[in-house]
């Protein structure tokens, strides 16, 4: 049997990788995917905790997170499409209108 801490460490690692993706990549799509990874890491932690504590809440939360992730992906992609149609690019660093 695998102790819960392994799962938590694993989700920590995945989460960090997702963050690296969000922070370092300039392509909007890659960023969206990295966010998906981060969310998965969180789900993993929820499920692991839920199963160890014997409380269905972990799974319910994971379920909630999933719906949010889906909604977030949809809207994120819609925005990317809108930007792409407007600016012909998905490079985040070019979008600087809000500069001081």
């Amino acid at each position: 049997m695998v102790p819960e801490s392994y799962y938590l460490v694993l989700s920590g690692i995945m989460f960090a990788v997702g963050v690296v993706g969000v922070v370092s990549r300039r392509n909007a799509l890659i960023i969206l995917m990295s966010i998906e990874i981060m969310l998965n890491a969180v789900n993993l932690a929820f499920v692991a905790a839920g199963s160890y504590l014997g409380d269905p809440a972990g799974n319910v939360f994971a379920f909630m997170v999933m719906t949010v992730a889906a909604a977030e992906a949809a809207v994120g992609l819609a925005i990317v499409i809108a930007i792409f149609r407007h600016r012909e690019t998905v490079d985040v660093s070019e979008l600087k209108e809000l500069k001081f």
Partner: protein
Amino acid sequence: MERILFFIFGFVAVFGSIMVVSRRHPISSVMYLLLTLFSVAALFVLRKSHFIAAIQIIVYAGAVVVLIVFVIMLLNVAESKIPVERPTLAQGVGVVAAGLLMLEGALVGSRYGAQIEKAVDVGTVEAVGKALFTSYLLPFEITSLLLLAAIVGSIVLARKKF
């Protein structure tokens, strides 16, 4: 036995996510994303959360990844257009911070993770369904509302500006 499976799937998940982040071309990173999702689903199964594993595969792998692929194809960014990634200071700081975060995650995990080896069967559809429709009924309804908002939002955002 379970330990070995855990390590396999754990390793695959991590490897997949690293690939997602590092691939230059979005299509390949989507594929690796799919791989990661499957390995995480497997881990769910290991934790006896069959319902969530199933949802993961159907919703996540099925819908979201397909959607991303669809959008990538729609945008079909020309080869030349893919931005050349030159590491900037901000990204450097970001990576360092992410490393720090990983360490902190690991530390938290190891310190607070329960050491006992028991797996209670709570992930079944019946248990999750009961919880969902009794104590967590309100959040459940609200998420439906959330999804509706997301649908409307993405339609409005993505439609062609006449």
